[in-house]
């Protein structure tokens, strides 16, 4: 980390002539993203350990206590810390470069960063000491140490500073540039910031009003049914919060890196808006198997759940068309001749293609999860972690890697240590993810429940599982090696003596770059109100019902 600190101060010195908003963007970007990738590399080997422990092949590793402490930490670090800090870093960087204006308060931005980081450190203590082995979903009435929940809340509060920063930045820019089109990249970042405010409200309410009061002894009981309902508010939309930057990069950074143009700017905006509006009010597919919500509400959420496939299918088309344009511009001919002409040696381009492949398969898996009745075949089986590792760990995280390869040299002014290593890393992550998640899905279909640390079932079914456990082990080993290759490349870039030549950060231009777009695709206020209405319809009664159905409350339990 010392190398990083010296780099940061080097940036401050060498960029004395650079405008203030650019150096702020770089610093906030670098610090946030280093926290993200540090969390990633701490959590990664835990995944390998968990696969090994669970397989029952290594008796020396067997320990339920360590396993559940590890899996809780792995989940919190990967799902909350890695993603949130990466998104904040990418957002600050994008706001500085795409809007070319000062952040309204640098102090405010750093305050958010410090609050969030302090929250992470606080939460890590009970997690690592086995005092909060409640999983990253922490469903009551099981509770861990109060410090875990307080730390997690601070992480969310810190991230709200970032959300406010992004929304204020876009609002100020629009005021200063009346009638102009907000750059697609910033439109995406800002709508994701607004999405995060909506998304995190559910879990924040659960933790602040239900869990923390009970763990501190201020109240004695709570309703696990209400807690699960509030968590479902957050649990699906959060996945879109993570995925959003991946889409933004495909639309506004990849086309230029590929040496071409974006197929359609407007359809990108349509996709972003749809991803926003169909993200939060559809969380009930996580509650399909729950007794505390009635069938009609589940059916209502089902419609919206399938609607989120629309922005993804639009994105698939636009990105594929964009890749084709770039291949043809570089001399590709015929029906498929353009494929080989694509700049496969560019990490952002390669990352996009690999992410798209994983998204296609993972997305079809998601259709099963989203299905009103088919869900019962896979609910809470190993299929579910298999699915979200493919979409988040695969599609999303591979784009985070690609962004880092693109951004690091442009932030610190040193050339990427090894492009070849970066390409090998992306490919190995891609194959590692397949080798891990394909058997994971199959284990789910073979009935293995999720979150088990051993397989003590003396049945013919349990015997079917063993070969898949072994394959998963090979896959996670490859993923771990790949993750370290990534971190080594970043650290070596900091130590690189070769200067980065191309320091410019510019965003893709569309084939028909719009001079004007409809107000609905250039502003968030309408969509914010639409979200409010949709949320009242889909979560209003299901939450209010807990005030009068008279559930006998639960007391807290240890694990």
């Amino acid at each position, binding site marked *: 980390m010392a190398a990083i600190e010296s780099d940061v101060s080097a940036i401050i010195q060498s960029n004395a002539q650079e405008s203030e908003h650019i150096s702020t963007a770089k610093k906030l970007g670098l610090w946030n993203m280093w926290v993200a990738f540090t969390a990633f590399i701490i959590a990664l080997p835990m995944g390998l350990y968990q696969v090994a422990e669970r397989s029952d092949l290594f008796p020396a590793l067997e320990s339920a*206590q360590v396993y*559940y402490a590890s899996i809780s930490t792995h989940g919190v670090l990967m799902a909350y810390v890695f993603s949130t800090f990466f998104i904040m870093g990418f957002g600050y960087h994008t706001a500085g470069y795409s809007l070319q204006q000062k952040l309204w308060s640098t102090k405010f931005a750093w305050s958010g960063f410090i609050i969030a980081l302090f929250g992470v450190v606080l939460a890590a203590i009970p997690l690592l000491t086995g005092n909060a*082995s409640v*999983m990253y979903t922490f469903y009551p*009435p*099981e509770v861990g140490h109060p410090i875990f929940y307080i730390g997690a809340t601070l992480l969310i509060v810190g991230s709200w500073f970032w959300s406010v920063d992004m929304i204020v930045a876009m609002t100020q820019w629009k005021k200063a540039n009346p009638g102009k089109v907000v750059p697609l990249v910033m439109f995406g970042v800002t709508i994701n910031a607004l999405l995060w405010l909506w998304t995190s409200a559910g879990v924040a309410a659960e933790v602040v009003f239900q869990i923390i009061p009970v763990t501190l002894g201020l109240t004695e009981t709570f*309703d*696990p049914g209400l807690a*699960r309902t509030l968590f479902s508010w957050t649990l699906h939309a959060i996945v879109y919060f993570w995925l959003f930057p991946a889409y933004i990069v495909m639309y506004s950074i990849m086309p230029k890196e590929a040496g071409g143009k974006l*197929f*359609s700017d*407007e*359809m990108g905006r349509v996709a972003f808006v749809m991803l926003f509006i169909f993200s939060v009010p559809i969380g009930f597919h996580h509650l399909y*198997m*729950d*007794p*505390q*919500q*009635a*069938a009609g509400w*589940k*059916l209502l959420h*089902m419609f919206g759940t*399938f609607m989120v*496939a*629309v922005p993804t*299918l*639009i994105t698939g*088309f636009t990105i594929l*068309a964009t890749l084709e344009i770039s291949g043809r511009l570089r001399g590709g001919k015929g029906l498929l001749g353009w494929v080989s002409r694509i700049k496969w040696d560019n990490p952002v381009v390669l990352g996009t293609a690999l992410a798209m492949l994983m998204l296609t398969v993972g997305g079809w898996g998601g259709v099963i999860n989203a*299905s*009103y*009745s088919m*869900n019962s*075949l896979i*609910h*809470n089986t190993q299929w579910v972690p298999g699915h979200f590792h493919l979409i988040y760990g695969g599609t999303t995280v591979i784009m985070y890697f690609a962004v880092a390869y693109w951004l690091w040299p442009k932030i610190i002014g040193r050339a990427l240590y090894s492009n070849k290593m970066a390409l090998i890393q992306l490919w190995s992550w891609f194959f590692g993810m397949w080798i891990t998640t394909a058997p994971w899905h199959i284990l789910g279909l073979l*009935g*293995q*429940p999720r*979150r*088990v*640390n051993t397989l*003590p*079932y003396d*049945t013919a*079914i349990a015997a079917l599982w063993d070969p898949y456990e072994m394959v998963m082990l090979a896959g996670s080993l490859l993923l771990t090696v790949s993750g370290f290759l990534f971190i080594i490349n970043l650290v070596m870039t900091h130590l690189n003596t070769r200067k980065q030549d191309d320091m410019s950060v510019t965003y893709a231009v569309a084939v*028909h770059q719009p001079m004007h*777009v*409809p*107000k*609905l695709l250039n502003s968030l206020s309408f969509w914010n109100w639409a979200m409010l209405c949709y949320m009242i319809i889909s979560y209003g009664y299901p939450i209010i*019902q807990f005030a009068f*159905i008279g*559930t*006998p409350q*639960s*007391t807290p*339990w240890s*694990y």
Partner: protein
Amino acid sequence: MMAIHIHPLERKWLFVIAVIILLTWVVQLYYALNKSTHPPSNVEVIDSVRLHLNDGIGGGEFAETNLGVKRDKNGQLRVTMVAARYSFYPQEIVLPLGESITFRFASFDVLHGLHVPFSNLNSMVVPGYISEVTTEFTREGEFPILCNEYCGTAHAFMYGKIKIVAKEKFKL
């Protein structure tokens, strides 16, 4: 309102997307409304702390003497089970193949889930609520009934057994 620029090919693709989404909706609506395939959603409350007593909400449905397989006055097979750390009670039951069975579950302590592999018997068991599922089995044999929601550090050891026998071999 200004129109946005949409490529003709993209217009066709949007049409394809609309057809895909409509199809998924129609298929699910058909099975939900016509075949009554619904996930467990009965919204019925019970006091988990007093589960074993013969008074209170639920009227002793989950008292120890009332657990197990029974036929109600309409002839419908009913299974009443308690999920508690770390087993399902009763721990072993025998059920007939190809007959509609209504399961009712309640939790004694924390959140649990249950799943019988290769079947659609899957439900959360949330303390404070009764979960009801009606299904039938299509395969003979011995199956585990597995807890599928993390319920504590011995979660992996929480399972019971369901034996499915041919209809004519089944007796209460």
